[in-house]
């Protein structure tokens, strides 16, 4: 439980700090921190249940993008304001670092397998973003259909 709180707090602060680095408007900082918290906690809980990190990353980035689109519609701002900082914690920085370290230490087998894993996780981030975009477009289509139906 203590761990859970620490993770929630640090992911919130880290995403918020990233918002400052990217110059996100002041009044949107809290929301972007919240997006990062949700994405990271989804990832962390799934990994905590000993499931695959690739799946966890996909779920995390999917959530980040979905909530960002929700916020973007609520506040009428571009989506990237919210999604950009939220994605950062999911970037496989640790894996890429381990891969690089093994390359430097001439352990190429280990390095290549770690690099492949990092590559898969970046792919999972892309997949998560893509799926949320699909859902977004489906909702848009459904909305316009409803409008045309009510008119006709």
């Amino acid at each position, binding site marked *: 439980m203590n761990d859970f709180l*620490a*993770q929630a707090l*640090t*992911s919130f*602060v*880290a995403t*918020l*700090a*990233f918002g*400052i*680095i*990217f*110059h*996100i*408007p*002041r009044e*949107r900082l809290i929301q972007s921190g919240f997006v990062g918290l949700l994405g*990271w906690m989804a990832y*962390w809980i799934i990994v905590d249940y000993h499931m695959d990190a690739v799946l966890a990353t996909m779920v995390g980035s999917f959530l980040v993008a979905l909530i960002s689109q929700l916020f973007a519609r609520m506040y*009428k*701002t*571009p*989506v*990237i*304001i919210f*999604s*950009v*900082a939220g*994605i*950062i*914690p999911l*970037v496989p*920085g*640790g894996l*890429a*670092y*381990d891969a*690089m*370290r093994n*390359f*430097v*230490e001439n352990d190429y087998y280990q390095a290549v397998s770690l690099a492949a894993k990092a590559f898969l996780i*970046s792919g999972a*981030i*892309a997949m998560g*973003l*893509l799926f949320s*975009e699909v859902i977004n477009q489906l909702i848009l289509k459904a909305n316009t259909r409803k409008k045309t139906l009510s008119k006709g």
Partner: protein
Amino acid sequence: MAYISVEKTYDIMEICMLAGSIMLQNGAETYRVEDTMTRIAVAYGVIDSDCFVTPTGIILSLEGSEPTKTKLNRIIDRTTNLEKVVKVNDISRKICTGTVSMKEAYHLLKDIEDEPNTYNDWVQIIAAALASGCFLIMFNGIWNDFIPAVIAGGLGFLCSTYFHRVIQIKFFAEFSAAFVIGLAAFLFVLIGFGEEVDKIIIGSVMPLVPGLLITNAVRDLIAGHLVSCLSKGAEAFLTASAIGSGIAVAFFVF
């Protein structure tokens, strides 16, 4: 069809170009830039417009009473300031609803272009330092390493901003920042101030990670802008390898 006059076409072109280049320079996705420019053009009554945006340049052509006019704008330096993107977006919304005249819109956009950053360098460095410490905890580091990671991360971000200002080579700025982080982390562990070198380095390096580039590359890919996706992906890869080699050199030193 009622074509608009020549002078008006040029004015519309100026506004579109200004809005587009501010957005592109400050980190908007390519497809959003194209979308905004086309919307502005349509809102001011241009019947047919076409634009082609890549991360390094904008080509816009508008159809008027005279033969088609085309303008090319080269984008050389790119930074990240999402607040400007939001502001230009707001203005384009206003233009679309017809509440802003062409002259007003031009002045508003010029104001945005000259506006100073919301957060100054020191606030950004403190933010980067704090983020480094938080990432250390998120990657299962121990709380004893929190302060070393904060210092190393802040130092790294400071170096990256400073070197980027002195030498206009992004690769070198990121490389030297990563090198400094590596050195600092090793030194901290050597004098017994920190415990896990790996965790400190991973946490401190995170503020340099090209997150915006990765997200934008994916979003551009989804929107079908293959050229932008590839070039942004290449830029992200270059940054990642700069960080990696910076750390690698620090390894060799120790």
